[in-house]
Each structure stands twice: as structure tokens, then as C-alpha cells.
């Protein structure tokens, strides 16, 4: 866990007081809506279909229990008793009143949480691996660097009015859980041949209307140079990124139009001017940040405690354990993923009561720490294996033990037309219907790892392009129509899915997905061949045939 000091707290409080003044000026009419819009967006406040939506940052997905309780408090006091965890390590509240927002922000500031730059054309909340610091085999905890970059990008005097939003993600593992290849800048922590820590830097990834997988711009940037290198990229983007057309304003378009070689030459030239400036990070600074991350005092525990051995007799527990429990770098501990995808419910929602109860469980079983992942699930990062059976029982009582992590009902979905003013189609009801169709755990387990991603519009908040099965809702002649893609993925082998054919109507989506899944089950060579592997081997044709032969 990272602990804010007085300096960080002062900045957050100063930001709250500035926003309080801005809201006051808006309510008095001193600020026009056009002027206020950008200011509120920089503070995470959107005007949605029914009300203001408030998006709170969870930098690199790490939460302390007092912070989770503060989020529960905001849900209860200022909203309708629940929050929605998003694909970007944020939580959104959907029904907040503008006049109360400064108070909500002030309440969050008390526990070191803010909403700075969770929206707007600036550098957004830095995201990272939700298993950072506990995943076996990572180079080092990427959150130390995430925090460095979080600080550097907060209220940056040069880059707070960019052509468009700008997202940075960091991973330190070979298995990429931070989806770095679909970000404006993706950073992979690596060591060079001298054993020095640095980054492979990728640039120009992104989804939306024009999806691109990020390209490597530099194979190794030393850790001490990472801020100057990021600054060089941003300076080139700020000057040359397109501002004439909102759809072409992201850095991915600039990289695409210039070509990665020319773009990297521009960046290199800029970088040479600034790399030996005050942006250079010495080891002392990194050590200072590292020192403010606290790590649990792990016990020496057996690999296979008796409690776990005994609980293995319960098939329900085993189903959950196999699905939700991952190896930890310390023997005797596990990482537990908590599914926020109960059958028939909107993906990613949690009630205030659930958040409070989870905070209690994290205090009891996970050294007071909770993580948020881009799959819209939560995780407890340090659970002793002997506690797994007790934790499972407690989670089950809260409705948080659905054993579907990474299975077909672990659906990523944006809020869609039910909440969002941008959406053209509903996402949540599609997700709900699909979870009901595949509610049978035996069947879901038989299918194996399969990610469905749903977006209610082309902006792709549900990351449909990179779903193993992607569902994109569009509007056609006043009707919701859904386009289906297959073969996308967001991990280290990131790829965009391929459209399988014409869009289908709202009522047909679940049937079509069932057809795709049935086709896969019939086509796979052996039970271990995952959906993605079958698609890779055979392409879209056989799936297309199966879906459209009778339609």
C-alpha cells in the first residue's frame, strides 16, 4: 500500500477547494456550461442521461480498506447505495447531485482518494496490473513506477489541455493483466543485459472508432529516463496531434498517419533535449516512493494447510477455488479474485453494504488491501491459504462467490444506453441475459476460458474489440443492432477481433452467442483447446457459417 504524506494530501485538498469554487461559480451562472464542462470533466464529473456521473480514480487499482469504506460512504450518502467499477480502475457513481460533489470529494480526500483527471483531455488515471507486487515472476512492483508517473501527470502544467484523453498503463509481468497494448502509452517493466530496470515503451494503442494495437517505440528506456521519455512523447503529441476532428485526435491516429518510424524520430529528437534535465529520476527518489509502499509481514506458512485439504471435499468450494484463487509469490498465500459478475446482475456493480463487508474481510484476511482490475472484478491480494475456506463462506453470504472468473459469464460491459448519454444500444440487459444462458457452472467450466466484452457504442468502453467474443451495439434505423466479433484479446498477445457477419437484433444476441459457443465446442480438437486457439486455427468462417446458415 502507498501512503500519502502531508504533501500529497495538501494537493488533493487544494484541488477540492478549487473545485468547490468552480461549482459555486457554475451554480451562480458566473461560469457558462461550456466553460464549466471541461473543469468538471477534469474532476471526473460527467453529465449523463439522467444525472451527473462521478468517476473516482483508483490509481493502479490499489485500495486500502478505509478507502473502500469511504467509497461505500459516498455511495450511501450521495448516491443510490451502489457504485460501478469500470474497465479503467475507476469507480463510478451514477446519481450524484452537482451541489453535493465538493462535499463528496472532500470526504474522499480525507482518505487520500481523488477524482483528478478521471476524465477530460488530459493524462488519465495511471492503470496497472491488479496483481502488482504479489504476482509470481514479475520484475518488480510496477506500482512504484505507476505512482511516480501518477504524481508527474497530476495537474501537469503543459499537458492538461491535450488534443484528447491520454491513458498510460504499466505491467511488470510477462502475462499482461494491464492491457498495455490498447493504451496510448503502454509500459512494460524489464531489465536490460546489465540488470538495470527500465521499460519497453509502446505507443498508439487504443480502441474506439479506429482501434489500434500499440507499437513498440523503444525497446529499452532506463527507469531514470522514463519521465523525460513520456514527456517527449506528450510534447510531440500536444503539438502535432490533430485538433480539427475529435475522432482523429488520439495519439494512435498521429502515430498511424506519421508512421511509427517518423513518429519515433520526432520523439527521439525531443527527448535528446530534455533527457538530462531535472526530469531525470535518481535512485533516491524511487527509493523514497518505494519506502512509502508498505508490504505485509507474511508468515511462514505451509504450501498445503489442513484447512484447505479438508475443504477440498466440498465441490462448491473447489469450483470456486479452482476458478478464483491464483498463485502468490509467497508460499502459503493466494491471490483471490472476487467476481462482481453474479448471474443476472449488471457487471461491475457493488453495493455500499458489499463494499463495507469486503473492507472487513480484507482487514481480516488480506492485510487491509483490495485491488481493482480492468475486468471489473476485485481482488484480495494476500490471503493465507488456510483462510480460503472461511473467506469463501463469507463471500458467498455477500453474493460475491460466483465461481465464474475468466469464464463465459465473467462479462465486461459498459453501462450502455441505460446510463450513458453516448450509447446507442443497451449493454447491461445483454450481459444479464448471457449470464442467465450460461449460468450452469458445469457448462461454463466445460467451455473454459472465454471473455465476452460488450460495448453499447463505438467508443468501446466495454473493450469489445479485444473480447474473445466482442459485442458492439449500434443504432440502425431506430433499432438496436449488435455486431459480433471473435478472436480479440487484451493480454500480451493483444489482437483485435474479426467481424463474423451482419449485425443481429437485440433479441437474437444471446442465441447467436450460444451458436458461436456450440460451434466452438464442436470444432475444438480436444477439451484443452481454448476458444481463442480454435478461432486462431480455423478463422471466422466456420463460426460465420454456424451463425448465419439458418438466419
Amino acid at each position, binding site marked *: 500500500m502507498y501512503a500519502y504524506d502531508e504533501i500529497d494530501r495538501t494537493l488533493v485538498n487544494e484541488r477540492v477547494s478549487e473545485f468547490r469554487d468552480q461549482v459555486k461559480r457554475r451554480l451562480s451562472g458566473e461560469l457558462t456550461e461550456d466553460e464549466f464542462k471541461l473543469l468538471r470533466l477534469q474532476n471526473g464529473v460527467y453529465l449523463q442521461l439522467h444525472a451527473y456521473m462521478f468517476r473516482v480514480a483508483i490509481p493502479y487499482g490499489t485500495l486500502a480498506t478505509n478507502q473502500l469504506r469511504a467509497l461505500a460512504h459516498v455511495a450511501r450518502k450521495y448516491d443510490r447505495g451502489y457504485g460501478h467499477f469500470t474497465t479503467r480502475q475507476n469507480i463510478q457513481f451514477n446519481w450524484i447531485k452537482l451541489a453535493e460533489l465538493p462535499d463528496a470529494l472532500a470526504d474522499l480526500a480525507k482518505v487520500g482518494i481523488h477524482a483528478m483527471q478521471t476524465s477530460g483531455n488530459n493524462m488519465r488515471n495511471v492503470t496497472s496490473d491488479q496483481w502488482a507486487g504479489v504476482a509470481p515472476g514479475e520484475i518488480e512492483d510496477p506500482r512504484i513506477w505507476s505512482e511516480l508517473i501518477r*504524481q508527474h501527470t497530476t495537474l501537469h*502544467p503543459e499537458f492538461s*489541455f491535450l488534443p484528447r484523453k491520454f491513458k498510460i498503463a504499466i505491467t511488470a509481468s510477462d502475462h499482461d493483466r494491464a492491457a498495455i497494448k490498447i493504451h496510448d502509452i503502454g509500459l512494460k517493466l524489464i531489465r536490460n543485459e546489465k540488470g538495470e530496470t527500465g521499460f519497453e515503451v509502446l505507443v498508439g494503442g487504443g480502441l474506439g472508432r479506429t482501434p489500434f494495437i500499440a507499437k513498440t517505440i523503444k525497446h529499452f528506456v532506463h527507469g531514470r529516463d522514463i519521465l523525460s521519455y513520456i514527456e517527449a512523447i506528450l510534447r510531440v503529441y500536444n503539438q502535432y496531434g490533430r485538433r480539427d476532428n475529435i475522432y482523429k485526435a488520439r495519439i494512435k491516429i498521429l502515430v498511424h498517419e506519421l508512421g511509427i518510424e517518423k513518429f519515433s524520430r520526432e520523439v527521439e529528437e525531443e527527448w535528446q*533535449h530534455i533527457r538530462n534535465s531535472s526530469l531525470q529520476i535518481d535512485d*533516491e527518489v524511487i527509493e523514497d516512493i518505494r519506502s512509502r509502499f508498505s508490504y505485509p509481514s507474511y508468515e511462514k506458512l505451509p504450501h498445503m494447510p489442513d484447512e484447505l485439504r479438508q475443504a477440498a471435499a466440498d465441490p462448491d468450494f473447489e469450483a470456486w477455488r479452482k476458478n478464483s484463487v491464483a498463485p502468490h509469490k509467497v508460499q502459503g498465500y493466494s491471490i483471490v479474485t472476487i467476481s462482481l459478475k453474479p448471474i443476472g446482475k449488471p457487471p461491475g456493480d457493488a453495493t455500499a453494504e458489499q463494499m463495507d463487508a469486503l473492507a472487513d474481510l480484507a482487514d481480516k484476511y488480506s492485510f487491509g488491501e483490495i485491488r481493482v482490475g480492468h475486468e471489473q472484478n476485485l481482488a484480495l491480494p494476500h490471503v493465507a491459504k488456510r483462510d480460503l475456506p472461511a473467506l469463501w463462506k463469507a463471500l458467498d453470504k455477500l453474493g460475491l462467490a460466483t465461481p465464474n472468473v475468466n469464464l463465459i459469464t465473467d462479462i465486461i460491459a459498459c453501462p450502455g444506453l441505460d446510463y450513458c448519454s453516448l450509447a446507442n444500444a443497451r449493454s447491461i440487459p445483454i450481459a444479464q441475459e448471457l449470464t442467465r444462458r450460461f449460468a450452469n457452472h458445469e457448462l461454463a467450466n466445460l467451455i473454459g476460458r472465454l471473455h465476452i466484452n460488450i460495448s453499447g457504442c463505438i467508443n468501446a468502453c466495454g473493450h469489445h474489440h479485444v473480447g474473445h467474443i466482442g459485442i458492439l451495439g449500434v443504432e440502425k434505423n431506430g433499432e438496436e443492432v449488435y455486431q459480433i466479433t471473435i478472436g480479440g484479446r487484451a493480454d500480451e498477445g493483444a489482437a483485435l477481433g474479426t467481424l463474423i457477419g451482419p449485425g443481429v437484433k437485440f433479441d437474437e444476441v444471446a442465441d447467436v452467442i450460444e451458436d458461436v459457443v456450440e460451434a466452438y465446442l464442436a470444432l475444438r480438437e480436444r477439451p484443452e483447446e481454448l476458444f481463442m486457439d480454435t478461432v486462431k486455427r480455423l478463422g471466422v468462417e466456420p463460426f460465420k457459417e454456424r451463425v448465419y446458415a439458418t438466419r
Partner: protein
Amino acid sequence: MPLVKGGKIVDDSFVKLAVDTPLPEGGDILVPAERFVGEADVLLKRAGKVGVIWPNNRDIDELVPYLGKVATVALVFPTFRDGRAYSQARLLRERYNYRGDLRATGQILRDQFVFMLRAGFDSFEVKKQADAEAFMQTAKRYSVFYQPTGDGRITALHRRMQLRHSEGVGT
């Protein structure tokens, strides 16, 4: 539009010329970039100060040879959403060591003052009178800064280092 300089509302001594406005005999003038570049010799010889209005899509390198001779550089924010001039300002201050007056023009609201000061601006053509009057109060809104820029303010990272070292002295 009120001009704020040195934290106070002041009279603007500069007259803005268009590309084809006849050149006045004396007095301070602010000239569009294309006219400035085309007539630099003539403009710089006359009595009175010369400033240049530099658009945010024109390469700042082109201005570099004249930096010792211009009294003011006015950078442009066509809307407050367009942040290109922040980069230009930092380049002028930090890379090219421009020490003259750096003026922010266009849609300048109080909510940008801190960013602009940090990027190196020192005078501001403010859109609203109330914002101009609120300058000092708004400019002092923040006491913590995370990034090093040419404005010389100490960053949070370095303040922490200082604190750490001073704590170390007595122990």
C-alpha cells in the same frame, strides 16, 4: 480585455497591428508572426517596443533568432481547450532561455492561471474582468507541484528529499 502583469491589472502599452495596418510612427506594437518575420528589419529599427503574436501551430524555432530583440511574445489560446501554447511557452523559457515578457492571449480564464504561470507566462490578457481581479487569489491556489518546470518551483519529490535529509540531521 484587462491585462494582468506582475499580478496586477495594468494598462496595455502595446497596440495590436493587423497584417496590413499602416505602421504607426511611435509607440509599442504587437505584430502578427507573418508580418513580423517579413518585416523584422524595418520593425525593429523604429522607436517603440515590438512584440510578436505567435500562433500555436507555427514552429517556435522560427522565432528563436529574434528572441533577444522582441519585447514581448504573445502566445495564443484560441479556446481554453487548446493547450499547444503551453508547450511553446515552456520551450521559449526552458530551451531558448527567453527572458522577455511572455503574454497569454485568447480565451484566458482564471482556471488556467496556475498552469500558465508554471509554463512560464507572466502577463495575461484575461477574458473576464472578474477573473482578472481574482488573479492573485487564484494564482496562489496551489502550494504543491509535482513536476519540474522552468518556473523554478520546488517539486513534491524534491521537497520530500529535503524533509528527509533535514530529519536525518538530528538523529
